[in-house]
């Protein structure tokens, strides 16, 4: 496993802990299909939330949330729809969130939660 993949994996763990602490029920992690992958699918109340986790070790190449492009957002939307088709979940509403994780060299990870980006 390459270093950047390990960082990404750790960021996803941090994000999962973050949403669990917020009282969400995690339904799936790293759900894959032919089109791509959803990092976290969780239930926030009766809302199904697909979460894209973006992790970086510094701000040197921009904030992690800036790396989520419009193309990526469009793909997340398609993936979320496909996930809902393949799973029998009664959703009151659906949305896509982004959780940006910055892992500084020292100190705790900084988590920023951007709600409803699509």
């Amino acid at each position, binding site marked *: 496993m390459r270093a950047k993949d390990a960082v990404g994996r750790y960021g996803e763990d941090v994000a999962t802990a973050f949403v669990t602490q917020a009282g969400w029920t995690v339904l799936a992690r790293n759900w894959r299909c032919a089109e791509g992958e959803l990092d976290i699918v969780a239930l926030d109340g009766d809302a199904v939330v697909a979460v894209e986790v973006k992790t970086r070790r510094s701000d040197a190449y921009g904030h992690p949330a800036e790396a989520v492009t419009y193309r990526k957002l469009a793909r997340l939307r398609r993936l979320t729809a496909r996930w809902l088709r393949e799973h029998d979940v009664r959703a009151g509403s659906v949305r896509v969130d*982004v959780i940006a994780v910055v892992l500084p060299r020292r100190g705790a990870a900084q988590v920023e939660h*951007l709600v409803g980006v699509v």
Partner: protein
Amino acid sequence: MLGRTRAVALVGLVGHPVDVESHLAPSLPGFTLVGLPDASLAEARDRVRAAVTSSGLAWPTRRITVNLSPATLPKTGSSFDLAVAVATLAGAGLVDAASVAAWVHLGELGLDGRLRPVRGVLPCVAAAVAAGHPRVVVPRGNAVEACLVPGAQVLAADSLAQVAAHHGAEIEVPDVEPVHDVRTATSRGTAPDLADVLGQEDARHGLEVAAAGGHHLLMVGPPGAGKTMLAARLPGLLPDLSEPDAVEVTAVHSVAGTFDPAQGLVRRPPFEDPHHTATPASIVGGGSGTPRPGAASRAHRGVLFLDEAPEFTSGVLQTLRQPLEHGELVLHRAGGTARYPARFQLVLAANPCPCGNAVGKGLTCTCRPEQRRRYFGKLSGPLLDRVDLQLEVPAARPAGAAGEATVAVAARVATARLAQLARWRGTAWRTNAEVPGRELQARLRADRRLVADLDRAVDRGTLSLRGADRVLRVAWTLADLEGRDGPRRTDVAHALVLRTRGHGA
């Protein structure tokens, strides 16, 4: 999460206060600019972002929406950069929002965070002050211009960091060199003196009359007679601009980008001499989006000199009819309508024929008759009818003596202008040339003998009825120059000669 400040949008010479609001939403980072920006304003996004980071401030990772309100007014240019930047910083809580909202911000941002001067600061600041927002931040390069507006509290800044620090940001203000506009050295030096013109007594007198009454002037003569020299000396004979005129003229030059801040308010009548290959757009103004002023507007309250007038395309000459009639130019484009003042004194110079030798008996002229007709035909008609003074400038004689200096003639002109101001007090007219014929007739008809020569010329067909009015106007000016309170029969006869190049009497 909302920051707001003010800027000014210019449409023609009229400034409209614009509210700049910046909303920061916790979502994916992005930057949208709404409120009818044009291409150069839409680029503000990239400049502002680079300038903020270069100044040592953190660019907020939020979805930033900047709105320029009223959103229906088309906005153009780079002068909104500073307002967009400080509104966004206020929204991010990096500067004091109340302080930012209390100021008007004008200026373009460089990528290094320095403030660059912009065009049209004078009318912008004037509009802000008139709208009740006297506190204005401008780039250092525009400070002199902004300070010309009475009642403005101007803060001249070198960089965005300095402005942010003024609004309470905790930031180190770097010591940067202020940006000044690069200007080609157009120092006019001293205006040419009338004493340089040798001989040409009649033409000099004609020039004096034109200056005294604000009359339009046509000079016809062979090449080398000194027509261009004479025309260039006309602005020197005119009195200084009044205070409101000076502000208006400076505003036009500020928008046109020809204002030199080192010289302060334009107090001398401007002089514009476009080349005869000029296009209509360059004379009356034009350009994409909101049109910019052309030579006719830059000559507002001054002199527009068309050398070799028949060589101008007829399109250009025809476009001058509207400003000659109304004193302003209204330009309609897709991007909006601009209104620029254009009350200039028109001076035309022409050769008598294409080869230039048809003077006197015209024995050396090599032009065919129809060539000569066509040459002058371009000028004739509606345009020439509006020219009060039509002079023949003969070839200069070698023994011509140096005449009076500009100072002496300008003093007489100033006295004559004062007499006119006193006479037309309470009306909209300031010079004899502006007074309509009806008023002139009403004042002079009492004495029928006075206008007997005129009536005879009209009867003979050498003078149109409108031409007769023009002659009366010039006659008043001649009387003013002599210090009399009304024209005599000799003045009318003299004016008739000046109007008709000696052919009408």
